[in-house]
């Protein structure tokens, strides 16, 4: 009975307790525990085997598209077009990294990768910093209009990007910042702020108020409390926010298309790949490796910081 060994398994908890207490009467008081006949036990283990099988099939189905792209990116160009990627799984194997070399050198994807970094790192740190200051004030200071201002910012969370792009483009044009990194940093800061303020305020607000009050009584300034008490405590929350914002900026296409459209030398990976798709059609040896280069960083972040990623998803709600 494989399933009953998992203590976290909620639905089958009766069986679970039953087995752990050696099949004797359960410690759980009340009516819910009854002995299982051998037939019932067999049915349950068959069911759980079937269930595991279904889950494995779903997981595989979900992974196949990405896996196919990954395999293809290492196949020689003529092979990609001659046969399906699944054929290359059988010997004789013939894989190569020349697609990656080609993309990085001749298609100038190295520059696009660096552009993505230049856009994403300040585009993440700036909004998180600005939001952290604001969230501290919203959570721990009293001033007139506090709740209304906060509510207004939260409301802007769901405003579609499209609603703001044209005026932002015009503002940036007026000050000569279209096509510049500074312009897109400012835009991403504004887009990220409502979510960041919302998330950080709820994290900060959940910290014990005694801590702040005793620090105030001891004469600590707000700045001191913020940097030496709050930020160290909030590292996990900040981590999940940073991951979120980074992914959002890194994966963004529309904002970059509009605000950097006139400056191909500043184009990030997403814009470069979208252009490749449109101009090359089905030039898969370039597309597959380029797409994989753009996915590499988010995937590494996802696997190494999965805990924070999920935490951020659960804590936040809606991003506009």
């Amino acid at each position, binding site marked *: 009975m494989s*399933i009953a060994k998992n203590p976290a398994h*909620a639905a089958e908890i009766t069986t679970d307790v039953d087995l752990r207490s050696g099949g004797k009467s359960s410690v759980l008081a009340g009516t*819910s525990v009854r002995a299982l006949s051998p037939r019932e036990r067999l049915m349950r283990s068959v069911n*759980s085997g079937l269930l595991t099988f279904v*889950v494995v099939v*779903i997981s595989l189905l*979900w992974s*196949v*598209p*990405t896996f*196919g*792209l990954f395999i293809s990116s290492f196949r020689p160009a003529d092979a990609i*077009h001659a046969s*399906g*990627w699944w054929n290359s799984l059988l010997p004789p194997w013939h894989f190569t990294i020349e697609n990656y070399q080609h993309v990085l050198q001749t298609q100038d994807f190295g520059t696009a990768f660096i552009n993505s970094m230049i856009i994403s790192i300040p585009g993440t740190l700036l909004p998180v910093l*600005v*939001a952290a*200051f*604001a969230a501290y*004030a919203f959570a*721990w*200071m009293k001033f007139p209009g506090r709740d209304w*201002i906060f*509510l207004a910012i939260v409301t*802007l969370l*769901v405003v*579609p990007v*499209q*609603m*703001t792009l*044209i*005026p*932002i483009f015009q*503002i940036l044009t007026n000050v000569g910042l279209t096509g510049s990194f500074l312009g897109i940093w400012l835009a991403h800061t*504004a887009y990220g*702020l409502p979510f960041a*303020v919302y998330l950080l305020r709820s994290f900060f607000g959940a910290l014990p108020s005694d801590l702040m*009050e005793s620090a105030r*009584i001891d004469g600590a300034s*707000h700045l001191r409390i913020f940097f030496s008490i709050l930020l160290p405590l909030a590292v996990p929350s900040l981590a999940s926010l940073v991951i979120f914002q980074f*992914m959002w900026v890194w*994966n*963004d*296409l529309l904002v970059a298309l509009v605000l950097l459209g006139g400056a191909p030398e500043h184009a990030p*990976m*997403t814009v470069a*790949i*979208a252009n490749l*798709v449109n101009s090359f059609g089905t030039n898969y040896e370039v*597309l597959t490796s380029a797409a994989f280069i*753009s*996915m590499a960083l988010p*995937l590494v972040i*996802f696997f190494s910081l*999965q805990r924070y990623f999920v935490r951020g*998803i*659960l804590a936040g709600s*809606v*991003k*506009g």
Partner: protein
Amino acid sequence: MAISTTRAPSTESKTPFFGSKSRDKLIAWLWIGPAVAFVVVFLLYPVFDTLRTSFLNFDSSQFVGLDNFRHIFTDRSMLIVLRNNLLWLALGTALTVALGLLIAVLVDRVRIESFAKAAIFIPMAISFVGAGVIWKFVYDYAASGQQIGLFNAIVTRFGFAPQAWLVNGGNNIALIVVYVWMWTGFCMVILSAALKGVPTDILEAARVDGASEVAIFFRIIVPMISPTIAVVATTMIINLLKIFDVVYVMTGGNYNTNVIAVEFYNQLLNFNDNGISSALAVVLLLAIVPVMIFNIRRFRAQEATR
């Protein structure tokens, strides 16, 4: 000193000329100032400016009243755009939430839960552009001979003719599948957390009373996690209304797959019509207003229990 009433204790003894309150107010504004400035300049002002532009002609030189909106709701190709958005909204929301819930229930009962969750969740980390490339490859079509796209390889293996998935009648659904592939993991993670919050004794009591697993699911689990389902569904609705990247990368809005956000982009950058593109953005905003109200209510309810 009223420490208990003001969280930030006053420092009036050191600042005789300032009332403590006005000083606190000033300090608070220094802290929220940058955020408020960003929001006002880059979000609030643009919203009102776009509203204004939506009543003006293509280069904003003339007031045209509701003409832009009339065009959106009467022009043939625009109606296709709106129809497609409705299809995205209905199918995309239903499929991601239903599949997310189903998978959450399934993985909750197996030992490989974390492995399965990771596999389904990974596409979330990929950009829509990356996903677009992945699925363009899956949907690849060759009129004859070797099929290098997975779908057509399967279809032809069973003796059917290969399909141009992104061009023929079902192409909108082919695009929606990509979105569902990406976002089901998101729904699953949130719904799975809610499922774990359903008290075990209630479920066990229902089982003892002879309720079937299906009845337990629909009559106990679903009602109990319905607030979370609502949150997930509204997130999907907001996402789907603005859907852009998938369509832009995979079909460019051709072959009757155009949606509001792609048409917004075309009107803005290809046709240089600020009036129509602003009006399209306003349509998106109006569609989101009910969600906004729902969010504010939910937020207030949360605050009340804080």
